[in-house]
């Protein structure tokens, strides 16, 4: 006769088993199988090419650079927004959440299409600026880095706002009140009480946005117009056009390794920040 605790554990395991099987067969297996293709023929040649060739290295650095830009821009926009949301009235909060979540739930494709309509040479923004006599010839807003950044920030901003907002809500309101009672000016309360306590949310948001933007595919493919190449687009091209599976696999190894390393590094930083605060 087994103990109730052991029986309980067995029942719980049984509940989780179907989902774990699905994740094993349709997630872990395909990913590991793909990664192993990079060394399928017993040589490290493909991996070496992915890491050492200047051309592919440049794409990797471009992807890291774009992911870094997107993360910084999102943070700069999201922090004040989350701060405002955390102190907004009930109506303000409801409207704000609606404006944040409606785009968040709307297809990336719909939004990317809309940005093409807005930013194109004869798009809405250029058209308006010209009608108002502000510009002579259309500004190049699309098919360049700027266009890609606008589109990506639009997609990823909620991933930054929501964790920071949640972290701000978790701060005990007595803490800023106590600081105020002790005579601290508002700027000091923000800098020395609110900001440090919200850092775990900031780190979580940064990790998520950086990692998601590193693997981005649709937005740069459509808004970059072929002039902005990110590593996910390179992988797709290897499979689709060149049918070079081992090299696509090698690039996947690099992308996944960088992704996991950065995610782990930011998570470790968070733990440090939590201990310090």
């Amino acid at each position: 006769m087994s103990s109730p605790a052991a029986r309980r554990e067995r029942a719980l395991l049984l509940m989780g088993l179907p989902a774990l099987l699905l994740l094993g067969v349709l997630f872990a297996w395909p990913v590991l199988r793909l990664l192993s293709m990079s060394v399928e023929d017993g040589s490290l040649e493909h991996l070496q090419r992915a890491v050492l060739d200047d051309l592919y290295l440049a794409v990797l650095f471009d992807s890291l650079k774009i992911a870094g830009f997107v993360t910084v821009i999102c943070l700069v926009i999201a922090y004040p927004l989350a701060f405002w949301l955390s102190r907004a009235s009930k109506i303000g909060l409801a409207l704000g959440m609606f404006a944040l979540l409606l785009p968040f739930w709307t297809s990336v494709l719909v939004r990317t299409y809309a940005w093409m309509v807005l930013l194109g040479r004869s798009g809405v923004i250029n058209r308006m600026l010209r009608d108002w006599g502000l510009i002579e010839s259309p500004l190049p807003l699309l098919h360049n880095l700027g266009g890609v950044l606008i589109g990506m920030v639009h997609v990823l901003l909620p991933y930054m706002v929501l964790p920071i907002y949640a972290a701000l809500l978790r701060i005990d309101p007595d803490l800023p009140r106590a600081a105020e009672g002790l005579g601290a000016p508002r700027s000091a309360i923000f800098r020395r009480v609110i900001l440090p306590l919200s850092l775990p949310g900031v780190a979580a948001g940064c990790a998520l946005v950086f990692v998601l933007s590193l693997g981005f595919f649709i937005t740069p493919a459509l808004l970059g117009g072929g002039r902005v190449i990110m590593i996910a687009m390179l992988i797709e091209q290897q499979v689709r056009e060149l049918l070079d599976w081992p090299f696509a696999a090698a690039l996947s190894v690099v992308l996944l390794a960088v992704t996991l390393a950065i995610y782990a590094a930011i998570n470790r930083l968070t733990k440090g920040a939590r201990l310090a605060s």
Partner: protein
Amino acid sequence: MPPDRRGGIGNWLLAAFATLVFIFLMLPLLVVFPISFSSASYLQFPPPGFSWQWYQRYFGDPDWIDSTIRSFQIAALCTALSMLLGVPLSFLLVRSRRRGIWLLDRLAAAPIIVPTIILSIGLYSIFARLQLIGEWYGIAVAHTVLALPFVMILVGAGLRGFDESQEQAAIGLGASWATAILRITLPQLRPSMISAGFLAFISSFDELVVAMFLSGAEKTLPKKMFDNILMEIDPTIAAVSVTQILLVAVCLGLTTLFGKGALATTLSR
């Protein structure tokens, strides 16, 4: 806090900034509305006149309708599967006291972190061998992998806030464990489950990267849109977009009504 003047200006600036960001967020959604009702035969802004022609073209074209129905089927099956598998999984991940459980927790959350392109081509090579490319249920099952983390995070959060002694009370009164979960626990998890269900549906309905590789000639709606955007930007896509935005707005409205805003805490983990 006492309203001092510097704080007043600061608050005002903050509110102005927030408004600008909300305009930035809503602008792309709003701009497709006038374009979808345009009477021009190509993309023109402002539209010269009103017409329903792009909606007629969308709803009158069997290609568009087929891919819309296909995406609905896929999203419905994905929602059912991810709830049936994901809710019990949340019980395991939240309640088990096994030592290695955090590892399974990481595995279940991994599809968010691992770039979708890697999973997509990994699945592509397997599905091609099994001749599953173009089968709608194949895509639905693959989408389930992507939707499971959302279900697990939302339902897991609901479950953590649930007082397990209620279940034990029911068992003490003679109910079986299964009955206690079905009649006591699950009804109280309904708000998180509704949010999770809508999120799973929308995430599958919108998904492109996996569908790009697995759908073959049987295009899903996002794949059809992607191809159309690459070839020509005609206002049919604006009509499709407006239809999708309205669908999302309805889902979001229902979630806020019945889901108790559980979504705001979704990504806070």
